[in-house]
């Protein structure tokens, strides 16, 4: 096996042209997924079965199936239904970008809501009781006592999911999107040089992961600066 360095130098800039799309997929899905996760969390811990039961089913389905299957169902499956194509959602579902963001958001939303629930459950009972003793309402206790601590507790696990989401964006290339992975696959199909191209791509993803890790590390430190000596 010969390693074609010229090819690598040639293809890295081409693949980087897709980094914008990778970031769009990542940040949009992360934002939508987090919003969804908070809604799911509130439903889950509401204590009302008709709110928590659908949430559990939802989380079970989206954690229990491969994200590639979810992407294919949304991209290829939904348009098979006539009423979807006639609906107001079609302009979004027609575009592969819309389908990818939808699938990634729904998927990450399920995971993140469980991560957040872990954070909420980790908050010491005593603190909440203290809040109640001070006369804070349940809502105020949740917003001012539970949430800040829960977020701090959930952050390490969330950073994990964020990295996982970043890698999942590569699956968008299976539905025609030319993100970094999509461009890499096109180059491989043209040059028959999978080692060079995919290894260079792996290095790019590793660099992105390192940046994300460092950012979350900084965030964690900042959020727990009150406990540092």
């Amino acid at each position: 096996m010969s390693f074609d360095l010229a090819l690598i130098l040639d293809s890295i800039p081409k693949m980087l042209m897709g980094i914008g799309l990778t970031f769009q997929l990542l940040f949009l899905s992360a934002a939508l997924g987090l919003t969804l996760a908070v809604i799911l969390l509130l439903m889950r811990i509401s204590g009302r079965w008709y709110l928590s039961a659908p949430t559990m089913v939802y989380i079970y389905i989206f954690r229990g199936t491969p994200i590639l299957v979810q992407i294919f169902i949304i991209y290829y499956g939904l348009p098979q239904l006539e009423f979807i194509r006639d609906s107001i959602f079609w302009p979004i579902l027609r575009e592969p970008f819309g389908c990818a963001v939808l699938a990634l958001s729904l998927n990450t939303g399920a995971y993140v809501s469980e991560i957040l629930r872990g954070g909420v459950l980790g908050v010491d009972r005593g603190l909440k009781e203290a809040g109640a003793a001070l006369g804070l309402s349940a809502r105020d206790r949740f917003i001012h006592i539970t949430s800040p601590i829960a977020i701090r507790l959930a952050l390490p696990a969330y950073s994990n999911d964020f990295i996982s989401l970043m890698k999942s964006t590569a699956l968008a290339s299976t539905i025609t999107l030319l993100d970094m992975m999509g461009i890499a696959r096109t180059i491989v199909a043209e040059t028959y040089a999978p080692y060079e191209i995919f290894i260079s791509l792996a290095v790019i993803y590793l660099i992105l992961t390192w940046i994300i890790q460092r950012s979350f590390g900084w965030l964690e430190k900042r959020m727990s600066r009150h406990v540092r000596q």
Partner: protein
Amino acid sequence: MKKLLTLFVAAVAILASGVIQPVKAETLRVGMECTYAPFNFRNEAGDLDGYDVDVAKGVASIIGAELEFVCQKWDGMIPALLANKFDLIIASMSITDSRLEKMDFSQPYRISVGRLVGKKSADMNLFDDMGAPIAANFDGVKVGLERASTYASWFEAKLPDADVIYYDSSESLYLDLVNGRTDVIMTNPMKAFLKFLSKDDGAGYEFVSPQIDERKYFGIGVGIGLRKGNDALKDRLNIALKTLTDDGSLGTYAHKYFPFAIHNEQWTPVE
């Protein structure tokens, strides 16, 4: 004793006549996969059938040779030809430079072309009367292509500004055409017909371009393969193929399976 001698001579004569037939026809052994419908396959009766088989029979009847079909797996096709297991490959084998290094080919009896498929009566008017694409009319038209295919190279060269979407398989190509994510696709017309246009899903769709047969992108086509150094046989094959082209036989063979011809209807030899 004399009687015995006569008997002996007669016996030898009979035996000899069995061995040395003065007008014995030449036999050409033809290699093919026998599993590649609709080009070479076994029909319900168990007989070999298909476009390649018809071409082989047509050629044989013109050059006056007997045929013997040999079923051979694709990956061993060229080695078997070179090892003299058969004399000709008539198995939908495309003429390529790397194959020409090892073997010879006749003129193509089937051409490699690309063709666009789109919605019926969409009147997109993408090509002029000469068969050249009209770039302006591709504005706003979403084109589905297979990643890194010959059709993709053709589009990049001829219509670099077209709005192209790349797919990994021809199945997803057809799916997204039906789903309305693309307006036209470019692919092999035979595949498009067999897998899509002739099916229920493809009912509302049709070819929206002429056959595009630019050799630079799509190759020369499919020819009869033979060992090098058989120029006399090659010439006879080419004459036979010209006859089959001119008398419309190749068209007839194709129309059994496709509603269009799959050979070059004007005999134009290539070198």
